[in-house]
């Protein structure tokens, strides 16, 4: 694509609202790798949503010591774990837990992070200073450690993990939204809106945030990928969900006891973590290129 067509599409995006997203979607569709990643993620989400239809939850918990460490077979596709529980069922229901944590924390980060980021970036001044200094403190604690401390204080369980992980990710998100808003706030159309007497809240919602949406989407996609990893790491360390609930990281942790005799116990949940996080990263890259073709390198 040469520079003159890029300029035309950018102009069109300003005049006609829908066409920008059509344009982005058209560019994303051309990126075959990103489309493949999107398909993989859609399948994983469908698995998580319809887990009960694929295999009932009881199967994931039912112990059968005669099947202990069974190898993959026609009845147990992924084999069985140390208690003789069907690993396929545990991976499928693990998808529900892992993806729920990843997507809900990413969503919470998105909402809270973009509100704070937009507000401090646009208002600026003392509020901005205060919030940024507070965020410096939060970001001086490595995120896993902060999440570990939160889980220790709140106790384990899905909701508490979500709170812990979301809190550790909000500071970074605020920073990114803020810097993008700082650029937007200097634009002439914002000045025009302000001169026209539009209220601050309305300017933020109608004019500032829509223009930061690109950054927000790309960052959220990357966040889902990294939250899959953080959640898996927390569960691997035994600080996540309550057993016997299946979660990918916890499944790997349970499987590592039998590394020598039954390596398939870490193989299947490991591949699930890897595929989910890898496809989210690829999609994030694809979206970044599609949203801003000038950045395409």
């Amino acid at each position, binding site marked *: 694509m040469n520079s003159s067509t890029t300029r035309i599409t950018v102009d069109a995006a300003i005049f006609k609202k829908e066409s920008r997203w059509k344009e982005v979607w058209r560019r994303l569709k051309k990126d075959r790798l990103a489309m493949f990643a999107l398909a993989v993620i859609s399948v994983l989400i469908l698995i998580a949503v319809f887990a009960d239809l694929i295999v009932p939850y009881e199967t994931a918990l039912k112990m059968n010591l005669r099947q202990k460490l069974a190898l993959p077979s026609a009845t147990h596709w992924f084999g069985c774990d140390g208690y003789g529980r069907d690993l396929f069922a545990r991976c499928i229901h693990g998808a529900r837990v892992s993806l729920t944590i990843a997507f809900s924390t990413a969503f919470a980060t998105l909402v809270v992070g973009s509100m704070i980021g937009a507000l401090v970036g646009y208002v600026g001044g003392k509020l901005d200073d205060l919030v940024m*200094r*507070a965020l*410096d*403190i*939060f*970001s*001086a*604690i*490595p*995120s*896993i*450690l902060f999440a*570990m*401390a*939160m*889980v*220790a*204080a*709140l106790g384990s369980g899905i909701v508490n993990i979500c709170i812990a992980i979301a809190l550790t990710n909000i500071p970074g998100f605020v920073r990114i939204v803020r810097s993008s808003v700082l650029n937007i706030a200097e634009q002439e159309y914002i000045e025009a809106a302000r001169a026209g007497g539009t209220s601050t809240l309305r300017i933020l919602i109608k004019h500032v945030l829509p223009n930061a949406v690109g950054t927000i989407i790309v960052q959220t996609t990357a966040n889902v*990928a990294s939250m899959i*990893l*953080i959640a*898996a*790491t927390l569960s*691997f*360390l*035994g*600080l996540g969900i309550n057993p016997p609930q299946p979660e990918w*990281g916890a499944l*790997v942790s349970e499987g*590592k006891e039998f*590394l*020598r005799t039954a*390596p398939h116990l*870490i193989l299947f949940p*490991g591949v699930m*973590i*890897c595929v989910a*996080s*890898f496809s*989210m*990263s*690829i999609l994030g*890259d694809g979206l970044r290129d599609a949203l801003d073709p000038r950045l395409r*390198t």
Partner: protein
Amino acid sequence: MIPIVIGVSFLIFVIIDMIPGDPGSSLLGAGARQEEIDMMNEQLGYNLPLLQRYGKYMYDAVFRLELGTSYATKRPVITEIANRLPISMIVAFNAIFFSLVFGVPLGVLSAVKQNTLFDRIPTGIALLMASQPAFLIGLVLMLIFSLWLGWFPATGIASWRSYVMPMIALGLPYGGRQLRFTRSSMLETIRQDYVRTARAKGASERLVIWKHAMKNALLPVITVAGNSFGILIGGAIATETLFGLPGLGSFIVSGIRQKDVPVVTGGIIIFAVVFSFVILAVDLSYAFVDPRIKAKYSGGRR
């Protein structure tokens, strides 16, 4: 730097304070009488308000180098940390070294050979590595190199061999990030005018890439290396626990499992202090790498 350490330690202190239980009953164990527990709590100042306890904790930490006594081992937390921190540092810096050694050159290579196989293959693998949890890579390495081939010990520290697999497990995901940032930074740099000028004046391609472009492209890479040190620490905790290394990370994890409040508080604060020092060191290193910043500061004195 100092306000951040105060802020961090206070935040951690408050969060950890929410863990149920009191030091008296944890230290004396289940058999102790209630009066003894109360006396112990009184002695440790547990009944004081939070702010006073925090002040006392920080006073002890800074002026007496005391971080309390572990509930589980009954030993001072500071000596445990002093024994364990070096191991964590060796693991972390090995991994950084390893990641830079393969991440930066491959990143430059893929930028220079953009859109060829020399670009696609390393960047693809880098993204795959960057989206792995370190413990998963560690488990695969453990399976192949210690259980099947028997080249390296699976757990514990016996010799330098014990550090090899943690270094790779931690360095691969970190290096994948380095590679991607080096590549995008390098791609931006080689389009700059001064690179074109260098080429135009007839400098050899090798000189242009490794001297003119590389020097400028490395700055953002250093920032990223410093900022993602936090991610590295996260991975290091899981790696230490997996490989049974007696580092600070595995110490904190076992502290959390046993609700050992002094261990968790002290460990996390020390980690955060180290982390802030790394960020500070990164900021200072700019002055050495970037002559523009050096000139700005020495200019004033002249």
